[in-house]
């Protein structure tokens, strides 16, 4: 990382690419039992972003009544004369689970990574923010209301052109600066580009309830 960028808590776009591939490698080896992050190329195949999709993040899963009451199709009442045979098991109580997609996208104007995310239920229907809030851990809710660093907004995803939630990046460089300067050793030796994303995600991931595996944190 260039010393100038580092002093500002920012990252160049080239360094973001470098950091991202290191991050993927690191994540997928250190914690191979976690879902993998992948690098998604944009249409023009020059830029890209980090993606982790279809994650069941919420810890507030309910017990699934589906397990206790399997019901054969013949018992369901019929609104429409459609064949259901005895060999069909209908999911009568589809479990209420929420899926999250997380994307880490480089922001040119703030020169920092930005976390974009969205959530949907098992049908694919997007969740409103107040439903997402219920999934968030208590400390995250507190951080959202108190902190100057974390502000969730809904904006157009730069590559998908659909509204996604994002953690607004305007505080990022400030706290990244604090994070790196707090550690004298890091301040002297300079921070490896590879660690930038890990450090960043350890703060940002918190907000959406994503925990960085401990093995990755040890390298910080």
């Amino acid at each position, binding site marked *: 990382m260039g010393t100038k960028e580092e002093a500002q808590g920012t990252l160049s776009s080239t360094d973001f690419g470098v950091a991202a591939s290191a991050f993927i490698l690191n994540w997928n080896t250190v914690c*191979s039992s976690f879902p993998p992050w992948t690098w998604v190329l944009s249409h023009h195949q020059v830029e890209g972003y980090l993606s982790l999709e279809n994650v069941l993040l919420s810890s507030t899963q309910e017990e699934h009544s589906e397990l206790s009451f399997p019901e054969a199709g013949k018992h*369901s009442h019929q609104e429409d004369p459609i064949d259901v045979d005895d*060999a*069909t098991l209908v*999911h009568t109580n589809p479990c209420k689970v929420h899926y999250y997609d997380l994307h880490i996208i480089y922001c040119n104007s703030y020169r920092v990574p930005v976390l974009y995310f969205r959530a949907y239920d098992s*049908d*694919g229907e997007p969740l409103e923010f107040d439903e997402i809030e219920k999934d968030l851990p208590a400390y995250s809710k507190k951080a959202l209301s108190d902190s100057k660093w974390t502000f969730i907004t809904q904006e157009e995803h730069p590559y998908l052109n659909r*509204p996604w939630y994002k953690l607004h990046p305007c505080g990022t460089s400030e706290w990244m600066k604090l994070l790196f300067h707090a550690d004298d050793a890091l301040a002297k030796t300079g921070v490896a580009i590879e660690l930038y994303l890990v450090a960043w995600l350890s703060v940002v991931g918190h907000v959406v309830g994503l925990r960085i595996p401990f093995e990755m944190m040890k390298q910080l």
Partner: protein
Amino acid sequence: MASESIVVFAQFQSAVDEGFWHRFSSLKLNKLGIDDSPIPITGFYAPCSHPQVSNHLTLLAESLPSESNEQSSTAATSGGNRNRCPVPGILYNTNTIESFHALDKKSLLKAEAKKIWDDIHTGKAVEDSAVLSRFLLISFADLKKWTFHYWFAFPALVLDPPATLVDLRRASQYFSLEEAKSVSAACNEWRNSSLTADVPFFLVCVDPNSLATVKHIKDWETCQSDGNKLLFGFYDPCHLPNNPGWPLRNFLALISVRWNLKSVRFLCYRENRGFADLGLSLVGEALITVPQGRAAKTGNGLGWRDHQCLPNAVGWEQNKGRQVSRCISLAKSMDPTRLAISAADLNLKLMRWRALPSLNLNALSSMKCLLLGAGTLGCQVARMLMAWGVRKITLVDNGRVAMSNPLRQSLYTLDDCLNGGEYKATAAVKSLGRIFPAVDAEGVVMAIPMPGHPVPSQEEDNVLEDCRRLHDLVDSHDAVFLLTDTRESRWLPTLLCANTNKITITAALGFDSFLVMRHGAGPFSSNDERQRLGCYFCSDVVAPIDSTANRTLDQQCTVTRPGLAPIASALAVELLVGILHHPQGIFADGELANSSNSGSCEQPLGVLPHQIRGSLSQFSQMTLVGQSSNSCTACSSTVVSEYQERGMEFIIQAINHPTYLEDLTGLTELMKSASSFQLDWDNDDDDDDCIEI
């Protein structure tokens, strides 16, 4: 009846990513139009990967053909993505909700089942096993409401009689430890090779040495060896411990037809965190009786092996246990109006978050603003108000848009000037709606009655009507901007505002200088001993604190430097925002920039001046304070109480008798200036350039 022991398959479940509907909408709008022929689509699924949650067959944006006829987008779908095993499907989209409900679901299902049946008989399903899970989607896309009605079917060929279950247990209980290890390894290898990762049906061969291999189903013959355990494996989306997932149904049909097996050992392959999980996976044994059923009736004795004899099919997805279609509304992410609103809100919330925690967005969005004049100042003030989150804006003007206007009056374009020109009040409202659809703007085409402009008796009723209308308008708004071009047209609004104690802001322009001020509270608004701040007319007769800046403004028709109006308009709106956020509001003392009396109450938005005068020739700006005058012709208690007592009669008198106000307040200034610009007014009556500042 051995009905308890039949194999009961867990139905496939669907999920549609909003990206699918986004792309489908644009496909429909830009390419398909009302063409409702079926569209081939691709669904994606993967083995169950969570002990409590089944996997869904998912439609993504990539499920649809790309809009530009290039095939480039298919590159993203091919390539052996282990979490996106492609399954062919077909989409029947209808153009009305009626035709959606009228679709013959039985025949549609049968048609797809026949494709599967054909693929089984021709052997295509052996080569490309994904076709066994072929699916069908019917939909009605209501693009005006961004609502999508849809219903999935996963056709399954019905075994008749049904397959019976001999055994079903966890794979970890079925295999020995050693076998389990080898099976896991072989499956993981299959799943991690880009050649096989998305091949959902396969064979697992375990030799007597507990060594497992995973093979393509087309290699069935080569796996026949004594002592080998042979299992028919498939990616099972289901997580349940007692039911195999849906794909096994057509797989059993294939096995029965192709290889004529009576007893089938199968592996419901499931994963956890991306690896084979034999604790979650199931191994079972099913018995298939050669189906007689309808085949027997045809009398050829071939049963299932007869290609001509299509079995029954089931598979319409249930919605929470009911036979109904699903509906999803994506207005939140597709309706441009909603998107514009949330983007606008976001901008202000960000400002509050980062810079102004005390910013009162509700006060701004609920504030009703009345703009008198829809010229250069009015256009710009309206835009600035919207930028601050003000939603309710009423514009009053009786002029039409002239050819010279669009360059300076930022809400108009050339189109508004054609055919004699649209009324400004009307054109401005349309334009505001185009800029921000959620604005609640209203236009009122009306002239503002002016003192010293006598009206003929036959027009008196009209003028009185205008006066009443203006009175009501002032009454029903929270803040009034005086943005007209002449001095005397500000008199009646000033009086009406003083009477009802409304926030009033005046902006006036000279050639290269401007005045922006807020009027003080009305004379009867408070029993506070402090002196009220002056109005636009007070400052005429009371010298401002700084007497060096006493340039007279807009007392004559003039052109102004184009940069002047945007500056003055912006200051006028910022002044309003300052008043709204000041604890004393309209009663707040006038503060001066960089002076000691500005420190009395440090506000987050800074000082709240009474008047701002600026000059472009000097590129300078200063703040001033002027107190109210007891002999003011517009806001003094004498004038306001006269209005309160005599109402319209008083107004008509002021309009018709040039000396009346003078008599009342003992002033001559207003009339002097009124007569001086009356000349200009008459001369320039048809010269819009000059009149409209």
